[in-house]
């Protein structure tokens, strides 16, 4: 079977998983259903022959599920009662989405064919990457040599996020300590 068929199959399972996650009443089951989406993305990367991305996506998905379970389990949630306004609002949302989809059909037609990118940069990397950087893994040579600035930005984002989390959570505990 061609790759596109498998990708459509994986996408269908992901859509079913997210719908199930929305409809389930139990919070633990809903979190596990969300996990289907992330693992589906990981499988899709494997079908597209991108094992680097598949590994990172798979591991981060497990990490995210652990954090979600630790953060959201054993808590009280208000149950939304079905009301008339919500029904109208969801109807309007569906109509707007359908209109956007209809107007974007011409753009889909102008996209390049699947598997044939317009960029010539990637062909340059494929031809000269191994010789210029000495790394057998081309992805590694791109993110740490040709595009090392991007990686520096990612490291900075990670650093700032962790700094923010540490600061916010510790300020609260410190004020509690002072009260005692």
């Amino acid at each position, binding site marked *: 079977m061609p790759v596109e068929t498998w990708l459509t199959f994986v996408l269908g399972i992901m859509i079913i998983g997210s719908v199930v996650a929305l409809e389930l009443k139990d919070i633990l089951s809903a979190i596990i259903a969300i996990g289907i989406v992330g693992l589906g993305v990981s499988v899709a990367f494997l079908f597209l022959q991108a*094992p*680097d991305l*598949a*590994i*990172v996506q798979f*591991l*981060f998905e*497990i*990490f995210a599920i*652990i*954090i979600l379970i*630790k*953060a959201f389990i054993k808590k009280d949630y208000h149950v939304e009662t079905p009301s008339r306004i919500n029904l109208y609002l969801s109807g309007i949302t569906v109509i707007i989405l359908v209109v956007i989809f209809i107007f974007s059909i011409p753009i889909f037609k102008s996209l390049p064919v699947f598997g044939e990118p317009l960029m010539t940069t990637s062909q340059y990397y494929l031809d000269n990457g*191994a010789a210029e*950087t*000495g*790394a*057998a*893994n081309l*992805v*590694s*040579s791109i*993110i*740490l*040599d040709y595009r*090392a*600035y991007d*990686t*520096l930005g990612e*490291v*900075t984002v*990670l*650093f700032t*996020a*962790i700094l923010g*989390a*540490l600061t916010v*959570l*510790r300020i*609260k*505990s410190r004020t*509690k300590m002072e009260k005692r």
Partner: protein
Amino acid sequence: MKSHDGMTLIVKTVTRLSVWLIILYGLYIILHGHLTPGGGFGGGVVIALAFLNVLLAFGHKFTGEWLKIPLLEKLESGSTLLFMLVGLLGIFYAGSFLANYIIKGSLYHLFSAGTIPLLNIIIGVKVAMSLFLVVWVMAAFKIEEEEEQ
């Protein structure tokens, strides 16, 4: 038994046996990042998950004694600084920021590809420490809330 005191004996025994294998696998992914799929991000998450495994199985108190948390915090911020340092050294040796200035070596060898393995190790340490510390701080925050109640 409180919820943050760890899990049963079965989970603890399995964790004691498997955690070093998981850490070894993470180190393998980081060190071979320039040869096989993977790299600093993937390997760092594997190591963070190994630490997280210990935290979930043995509880907060044991993990705090096993891992030196202040050291992890210093490693976490120090690795960002090291990344910048490697980049700045590129200005002196090759003329541009983050240039690949170490000898490339031959293809498919472990010691090859210049600064790429070095940056992979730095990113691996960074990702492992920061992801673990977030969960650690969240767990500590939760325990304090429970103690108040």
